């Protein structure tokens, strides 16, 4: 891409995909913005007058909004902590030479291939069900009262399910990073007097930092919009205990049929996601340089 000519040609060649992507993004965004300024309720057909910021003030002053923000953050941070810590430990474990390594690796990666709706249903009905679930049986076997996960700790249960799904992703990325760590470097550290913990802290962790950054960035994007797991388990309840921003927008537009407020919520969600993204890039994006 050195000459003027080749640069112009390059721009021309990538323009179709850029235009397509822009259209793909801008048209829905424009429509959402447009709807968010209308009074547009599917239960009251007729005129859709322009109402200015009314939808926004309605959405932002809704007590469910604050709960949803807190829940969204808890969900994202909770899952990130569990998957990054768990993924690092699993990656170290899987990096050791052991018998049946190939099969174990496939088993660890398997949850990633289960679609979110299915995995949430499996967890809900087969593991966490207070009557028939595996955990309930286990509790009974130990003589404890069964724990009703989705009633007593709905958000924590969802964090658990989502973590289970994303753990393989984190493990996989961190494992490949582990494998690129030069073993002579670890041996040099060992000869320099670094014990296992020091070697982890001073050699392995800095080496993994870039991979951890990638895991955090990618997962955050997906975790901000967790939806299926909530829909099939708790429906955002009890109350608003497990409602995140995505689910709240859904509830506004498709349960209360208020498209205008739903759109306003969508726009708020976009803004918040961008704030989080800028924040993240500032904080850890520098790990990706060099």
């Amino acid at each position, binding site marked *: 891409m050195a000459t003027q000519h080749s640069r112009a040609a390059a721009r021309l060649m990538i323009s179709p995909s850029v235009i397509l992507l822009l259209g793909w993004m801008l048209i829905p965004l424009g429509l959402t913005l447009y709807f968010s300024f209308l009074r547009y309720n599917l239960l009251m057909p007729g005129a859709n007058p322009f109402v200015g910021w009314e939808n926004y003030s309605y959405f932002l002053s809704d007590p469910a909004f604050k709960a949803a923000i807190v829940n969204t953050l808890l969900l994202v941070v909770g899952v990130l902590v569990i998957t990054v810590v768990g993924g690092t430990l699993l990656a170290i474990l899987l990096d050791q030479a052991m018998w049946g390594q190939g099969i174990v690796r496939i088993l660890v990666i398997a949850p990633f291939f289960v679609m979110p709706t299915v995995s949430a249903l499996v967890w809900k009905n087969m593991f966490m069900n207070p009557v028939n679930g595996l955990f309930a049986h286990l509790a009974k076997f130990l003589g404890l009262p069964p724990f009703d996960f989705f009633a007593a700790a709905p958000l924590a249960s969802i964090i658990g399910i989502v973590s289970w799904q994303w753990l393989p992703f984190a493990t996989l990325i961190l494992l490949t990073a582990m494998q690129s760590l030069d073993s*002579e*470097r670890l*041996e040099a*550290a*060992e*000869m320099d007097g*670094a014990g296992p913990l020091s070697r982890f802290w001073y050699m392995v962790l800095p080496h993994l930092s870039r991979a951890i950054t990638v895991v955090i960035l990618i997962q955050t994007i997906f975790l901000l919009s967790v939806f299926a797991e909530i829909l099939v388990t708790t429906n955002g309840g009890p109350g608003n205990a497990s409602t995140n921003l995505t689910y709240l927008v859904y509830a506004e537009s498709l349960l209360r049929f208020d498209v205008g407020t739903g759109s306003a919520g969508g726009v708020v969600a976009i803004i918040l996601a961008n704030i989080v993204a800028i924040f993240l890039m500032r904080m850890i994006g520098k790990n990706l340089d060099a």
Partner: protein
Amino acid sequence: MGRITLDKVRKAFGDVEVIPPLDLTIEEGEFVVFVGPSGCGKSTLLRLIAGLEDVSSGEIRIDGQNATDLPPAKRRLAMVFQSYALYPHMTVRKNIAFPLKMAGLDQAAQDKKVEGAASVLNLTDYLERRPGQLSGGQRQRVAIGRAIVREPAAFLFDEPLSNLDAALRVGMRMEISELHERLKTTMIYVTHDQVEAMTMADKIVVLRAGNIEQVGSPLELYRAPRNVFVAGFIGSPKMNLIDGEEAAKRNAHTIGIRPEHITPSPDAGTWEGTVGVAEHLGSDTFFHVHLPGREEPMTVRAGGEVSLHHGDKIFLTPDETQLHRFDAQGLRI
């Protein structure tokens, strides 16, 4: 400080015995070079001494103390790896300070030692850089710096110069020799390059397939190689080895003669041949001379200014007092 004894040390990877039982003593303050062709087990032997591999049997003693089961960190040995194994995410200063930090030294003491090592190794201007911003020779020095700040009982070097270009290699060779003169610490140096071995060692250990072929000073090995392998391995250009009739005439299975112990002459001599390729080094010229009935050419040293041309007829006369004779087992007679 720094006397290392190997007693019947043996190493096998699974069924493959890489080091058959081997005895060796490295005296305090010695510069010992392990030399041998690639894959002969030099690195493995070094790693056994370092403690990075477990011995299959036998005993390693450091200063009289049994170190066979000591972890690497407890052996007071410092190693310089072929790949340097620097810590890329740390500055040069932190790299060199790392062993001190692990030993729990306070910051002031760390700084003092790091700066001392840096000035010895001409690294003072680079202390705040990362290894990725240094040249090969500088990285090599950082690796050495990281080793010397620990004040170990012995240094272990595994082919430390093989990633450098020829000119740098000669320079670093001198620097390492200088360092040994100054520190007087035991050094064990592994290389496949016999020139490095000859120029640096107090004592050379020639290895082949894990066996020690000969131990001795560079000149001992050069003057009296114990067998054909050592004769052919030590010295550059290589010793000329002759089998068959010429050897039988001198009551040997194989005879060896170094290039400098052959006198070329245009009109009379013991062997007659034709001149092949000539290597002009300025001070010396090495001629390859083809003798009838011999596949490999003989290498002959002549002065810098000799007018012999490709295809010329030539006579060679070996200096009979400098002839090496070997029996059918390849051992020196």
